[in-house]
């Protein structure tokens, strides 16, 4: 290798040919075999990724009895919206049993509402509290700022496993088991990652407008609300989406602090539904309808914010 490529020779040829524009050269004709293999590989990956979603839909639109008789049909078997109606509690119990449902009603709709409350309130609170804290770190001068900031950052090192059990004990002592407050509070006030992320962004914002506003006599709090927060809308949306996804999918924490279905989120409802499904003949059609309902908000979010999600995930990995 060293013989053919002397260290200095690498950039030289490119510089020696200034006439050749960079763009068309990058889209060169590669040996087509290599590119074909690459595309086949990508196709396989995409199929493996997408197929379970299709299978969810296909099974959710099937009659459970018919589907069990014909498990490998690529299309819905005995096409019906029954499973969806069943899990939303809109189907007549007798009809549900006839289609292979358990007959027990699942209050999916109820769990859905709980999930919306849990994820929305948690996300709004944590993003707002992170935002105002980030402003204090990015724009205000006060003693102890660096010390407090490093303390907060240190919290990034402590994983959930260490705090989950003691937090459960605390919530129990506060009498907040089986309440939304108990579910939401521990994650709604402090997020080291959010504060760090927002502070970095604010430090990169030009201070000119804010200084002009200060000269005009505006207070700092007013500047934060009227100038800084609007200017930070990009990262706010990103963190809100990522936060909402995380909360919507959260399972372990609600499992610890709730036993009452009146406050449990959909992840728990789904788990209960799956566990209560009869072992001998589970209502797979109903289960798939329920999982689809649970996944739907995420799929919608994805349709609307797909590009932003992809880019923000790429960014979060790069710090």
């Amino acid at each position: 290798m060293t013989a053919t490529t002397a260290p200095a020779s690498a950039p030289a040829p490119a510089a020696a040919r200034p006439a050749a524009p960079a763009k068309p050269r990058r889209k060169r004709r590669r040996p087509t075999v290599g590119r074909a293999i690459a595309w086949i590989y990508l196709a396989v990956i995409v199929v493996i990724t997408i197929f379970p979603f299709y299978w969810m839909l296909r099974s959710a639109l099937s009659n459970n009895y018919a589907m069990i008789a014909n498990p490998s049909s690529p299309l819905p078997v005995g096409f019906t919206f029954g499973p969806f109606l069943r899990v939303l509690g809109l189907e007549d119990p007798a009809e549900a049993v006839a289609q292979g449902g358990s007959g027990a009603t699942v209050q999916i709709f109820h769990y859905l509402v709980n999930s919306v409350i849990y994820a929305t309130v948690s996300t709004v609170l944590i993003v707002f509290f992170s935002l105002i804290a980030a402003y204090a770190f990015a724009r205000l001068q006060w003693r102890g700022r660096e010390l407090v900031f490093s303390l907060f950052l240190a919290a990034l090192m402590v994983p959930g496993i260490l705090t989950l059990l003691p937090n459960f004990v605390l919530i129990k002592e506060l009498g907040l088991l089986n309440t939304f407050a108990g579910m939401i509070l521990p994650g709604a006030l402090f997020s080291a990652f959010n504060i760090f992320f927002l502070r970095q962004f604010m430090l990169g914002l030009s201070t000119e407008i804010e200084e002009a506003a200060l000269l005009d006599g505006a207070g700092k709090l007013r500047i934060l609300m009227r100038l800084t927060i609007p200017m930070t809308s990009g990262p706010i949306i990103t963190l809100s989406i990522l936060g909402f996804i995380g909360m919507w999918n959260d399972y372990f924490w609600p499992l610890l602090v709730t036993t009452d279905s009146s406050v449990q989120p959909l992840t728990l409802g789904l788990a209960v539904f799956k566990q209560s499904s009869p072992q001998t003949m589970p209502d797979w059609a109903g289960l798939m309808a329920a999982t689809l309902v649970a996944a739907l908000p995420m799929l919608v979010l994805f349709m609307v914010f797909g590009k932003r999600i992809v880019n923000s995930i790429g960014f979060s990995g790069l710090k």
Partner: protein
Amino acid sequence: MSISTVPPAVEPPAPDRAARRRSRRPTNASAPSHRGDAKLAWLLIAPAMIGFLVFALYPTLRGIYLSFTDFRLLSAPTWIGVQNFIDLFQDDTFWQSLGITLYFVVIAVVLTLAVSIVTAAVLHRVTQSTVLRGLIILPFLISGVVAATVWSWMLDAQLGIVNQLVHALGGEGIKFLTSREWAIPSLALIHVWKNMGYTSIIIFAGMQTIPPSIYEAGRIDGASEPKMFFRLTLPLLRPILALVVVLNVIGAFQVFDIVSVATKGGPAHASNVLQMYIYQKAFGQFDFGYASAMSLALFAILIVITFVQMRLLRASESDNA
């Protein structure tokens, strides 16, 4: 090799930003407009501070304290020194769980990384399509519960589509989630399915920071694509790969959702991963002291593993040998 000129090109933003911040500080400090800042600052960080003290710092310290106590939730904890850790050391189930967890982590992390690196590299060299990247992160957006439920259906021993396929190809049906030997590999596959897209995107983003001119130069020197992958891409990605490995290991070690839904730790404890065992101890037997001790042990294991990985992967520097 010709790579020696590369590393500086990958990292310019960091020193840049630091310099800018440093230059701003003096002007800020001397500005007269910062009177009254302290009061407002404490007001603004008050919620975060309360959250930090009450739900992060206090539980961490309390968790460590509880590890040294006998605590059954209904009565006050009693100090028993290192007894929990002595018990832990002699607890066969703990060691068995640790073994099962390690088995899971190795399969899950190796597969996730192998698939993700190849996927990211192919995406990087073949297409910049955001749609394609969007599609492969879909599983990351759904909960572990949903993933586990769908795969329980697809991997069902009799009716699952995967076994239908195995039958069609002349194979014998596999009890993916209901046999001792297949439970952990199957769970690991679900985990890989859920995480490979996300990991690919992070690695892909890292590859985006490699200047195209490097590949240009490599091609002029007659290097093939695979050769450039091993000689250019991988060495340059070392810092990001190290980070991804560490995050994946930490994540896999704490697996709970998919195990809890797909197998409940069974059959016959064959998939009783550590987090599952901790949960059972705490909420099945209300032995919170012992469960806390296990959490602390798991935490210590993660720190050691992270430290070793960072050293082995020389995470802080990209390869320029």
